[in-house]
C-alpha cells in the first residue's frame, strides 16, 4: 500500500516540465473536461442500472473505509498550497493513509480555523482554482492507490452546478465529497448528482445533532460519516473533546457507513484515543501547519506515519471493535 517515496513522487525535472506544459496548453484542460462529460453522460438504461447497483454496493471510498481492518487514517491536504502540492498528497499515502482529503480552497471558509484559513488564502494567492487543482490531481492519478475525498464549500459546488461539479471530480479520479455548509436538509440536487457520478457524499454529524437526526444523517451518508469532534471551527487543540467519543458511539449505533472523528485531532495520542471510539480519524490542521511552516514532503510523510503507528498500536491492543 505505501509505495516507496522515491517512486511515489516525481522528480524536480518532471514537475517543472509538467507545470510548463500545463500553462502552455490551455486546450488540454478543455479536452479533459469535455472527455469527462462525455464519459459521464450515460444513456437512460445505464443510469438505471448504475443507480440500482449503487444502493446495493458501497462506493470506492466506503470500501476503503471498511476494508482496511485497522483504524482508518485520512490526512488532509490543501490543494494548491504550494506549486508541488501533489507531493504532499503522495507523502500522505506513503505515510500510511487509507484515503486522503483534498481541500479545494474557498475565499470564505466559514468552518475553518486560522490554520486552514491561512492555507486557503495562500493557495488562492498563488492562483489556485478548482480546475487547476483537479488537473494537478489527474497528473498523479496513476501513483495514487488510495481514494481521494474532496472537501469544499457549497458555493464552489453551486457555482459549477452540482452535476458538472461531480462529473469533473469523477473525471479527476475523486471518489468522495464533503461539503460542510450543506447540511442534510439542503442536499438538493447534489445528492443524486454525486450518486450519478459515483461520488460518495460524506455527511457530518456534530455534538449538537439530536439522536433522530444522527440516524437520518448516517442513513444518507456515503463513504463514511464525519463526526465533528467539537463545537468549533477546525484547528489544533490540546485535548480531544470528550463529546467526540459519545458522538462517534451514537453514530456507530445508528448503522450506516464507518464513522471517522475529525476536527481537533492534533496528536498521534489523540488519534489513538479517537480511534478507540470510532472507525478512524481525519487529521487536518496539524498537518497543514507543518506544510505552512515549510515541511518537506518527506517530513510530512513522517508525521503521517507517526499517526499511522499510533493508530495501529491501538488495534494491536484490541481496543477497536470492528
Amino acid at each position, binding site marked *: 500500500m505505501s509505495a516507496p517515496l522515491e517512486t511515489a513522487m516525481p522528480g524536480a525535472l518532471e514537475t517543472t516540465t509538467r507545470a510548463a506544459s500545463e500553462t502552455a496548453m490551455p486546450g488540454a484542460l478543455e479536452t479533459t473536461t469535455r472527455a469527462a462529460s462525455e464519459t459521464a453522460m450515460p444513456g437512460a438504461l445505464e443510469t438505471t442500472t448504475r443507480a440500482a447497483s449503487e444502493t446495493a454496493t458501497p462506493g470506492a471510498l466506503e470500501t476503503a473505509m471498511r476494508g482496511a481492518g485497522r483504524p482508518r487514517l485520512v490526512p488532509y491536504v490543501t490543494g494548491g498550497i504550494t506549486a508541488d502540492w501533489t507531493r504532499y498528497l503522495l507523502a500522505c499515502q506513503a505515510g500510511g493513509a487509507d484515503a486522503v482529503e483534498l481541500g479545494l480552497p474557498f475565499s*470564505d471558509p466559514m*468552518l475553518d480555523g486560522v490554520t486552514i484559513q491561512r492555507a486557503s488564502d495562500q493557495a488562492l494567492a498563488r492562483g489556485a482554482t478548482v480546475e487547476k487543482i483537479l488537473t494537478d490531481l489527474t497528473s498523479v492519478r496513476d501513483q495514487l492507490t488510495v481514494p481521494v475525498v474532496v472537501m469544499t464549500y457549497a*458555493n464552489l459546488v453551486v457555482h459549477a452546478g452540482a452535476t458538472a461539479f461531480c462529473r469533473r471530480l469523477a473525471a479527476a479520479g475523486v471518489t468522495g465529497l464533503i461539503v460542510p455548509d450543506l447540511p442534510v436538509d439542503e442536499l438538493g440536487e447534489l445528492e443524486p448528482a454525486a450518486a450519478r457520478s459515483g461520488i460518495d457524499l460524506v455527511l457530518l454529524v456534530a455534538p449538537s445533532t439530536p439522536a433522530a437526526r444522527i440516524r437520518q444523517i448516517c442513513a444518507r451518508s456515503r463513504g463514511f460519516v464525519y463526526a465533528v469532534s467539537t463545537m468549533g471551527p477546525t484547528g489544533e487543540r490540546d485535548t480531544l473533546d470528550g463529546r467526540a467519543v459519545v458522538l462517534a458511539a451514537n453514530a456507530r449505533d445508528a448503522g450506516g457507513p464507518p464513522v471517522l472523528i475529525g476536527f481537533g485531532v492534533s496528536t498521534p495520542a489523540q488519534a489513538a484515543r479517537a480511534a478507540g471510539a470510532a472507525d478512524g480519524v481525519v487529521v487536518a490542521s496539524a498537518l497543514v501547519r507543518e506544510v505552512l511552516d515549510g515541511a518537506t514532503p518527506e517530513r510530512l510523510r513522517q508525521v503521517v506515519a507517526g499517526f499511522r503507528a499510533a493508530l495501529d498500536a491501538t488495534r494491536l491492543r484490541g481496543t477497536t471493535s470492528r
Partner: protein
Amino acid sequence: MTVTNALSVAARTMMAEPLAGGRFGEFGGRYVPESLVAACAEVEEAFREAWSDASFRHRLERLRAVHAGRPTALTPAVNLSAELGVTVLLKREDLAHTGSHKINNVLGQALLAHRMGRRRLLAETGAGQHGVAAATAAALFGLDATVFMGERDIERQQLNVFRMTMLGAEIVPVRSGSRTLKDACNEAMRHWVTAAHDSYYCVGSVMGPHPYPWMVREFQRVIGEEARAQCAAELPTSVPTHVVACVGGGSNAAGTFAGFVDTDARLIGVEAAGGAAMTDGTAGIVHGYRSRVLQDEHGQVAEAHSIAAGLDYPGVGPEHAYLGDIRRARYVTVTDDEVVPALRRLARTEGILCALESAHAIAWVLRAAGTADLPTGSTVLITLSGRGDKDMPALMATATR
C-alpha cells in the same frame, strides 16, 4: 393553476412567511455547518413563539417608543421637491436612537435573546451602526456584547468603534480575507459555533441562515408600516408612486418595501456600484444563505468596494433576489462619485446630513428625476436609513483633497 391564480397567490405570499426551509423562491435556506443547525432551529422556534405572543409584541412596541424614539418622522423635502419636480418624502430613520434603522432589528433580537435566556449578543458590523445598536441593546438588557469588525472597517469607522466601547462592547478585530464586513460575518459564525449554548447571534441585516432574513425583515417592517400610514396622511394619492431605499444586506429596504409590496408603488433598491450583488452578482451561497453573490469566474467571493462601509458587502438578502427575479422590485446602482454630491445637496436643501449609505437612494432620485424612471409629478418615498455623523471624517478627507 391558471396564470391569474398563480399571480394572486404570489401577491398574497409576497413578503409574508417564507416557504418551508426559509425559501424565497430558490433563495434563502440554511447553509450552515451541522454544528449550527440546532442553534438556527432554536432561534426559529423562539421567534415563531415570540412573534405570536401579544406580550412580546407589546414589549417591543413600547421599547420602540420609549427607547428608540419611534415613530420616526416623515419629512417632506420641500426645497428638493421644488427643484426636481417630484414630491420627495423622507422616512427619517436617521432620527431613530443610535442614528440608524439598525436599532429596530436589534431591539427585536435582543428581546428575543433575553427571552431565550442568553447572556451575550454576538454581532458583526461593517459601518459600525449595527455594532452600536447591538452594544446599545446589550447594555439595556444587561447582556454582554461581542462585536466582530474587519480591521479595515475599524480604521474607517473610528467614531462608531469608540461608541461601542463606551457602551461596554468588546470589539474583535477581524484580520482574515478582505478585512471587511464579509470576513467579520465568517468570524462571527465561527465564534457562534463555539458559543451557541449561551450566546445569541444577532445578525445585522436580512441575510444569514433561516430564520434571520425573515425575522430581520419582520423587525424592520415597522419602517414601511409607519411610512405607509404617514404617506396616507400626507399624500392625496395616499400611496407614493415610487419607494426608494439603499441596499447593503438589504434590511432597511426590506422593511420599507414590506409596507408597500401590496400597492402599485414601484419598489427601487439602490446598491453601491462597487458592491452590487443584485446587479452584478450570480447565484451563490455565502454566510449561510443562497442568493446573488459577487464572485469571480471561479466561484471565489469577490471583495466589494464602496465609499459607504455599510454597502460594502458582496451578498444581498435572499428575499431581494426573489423580489428582483419576479420583478416586483427593481435594483439599480449609483457610483461613489454620485453619492457625495447627493449627500451635500440634501444637506444644503433640507438641512439633513444623512449617512453615505442613505445618500445612495438620494443619488438615484437626483439622477432619475424627470426621466422615464421617475417622471415629473411622481411622488417618491425615500428611506433615510441613517445619519451622517459617522461619515464626517471620510467627508472631511474628500473635502480637503
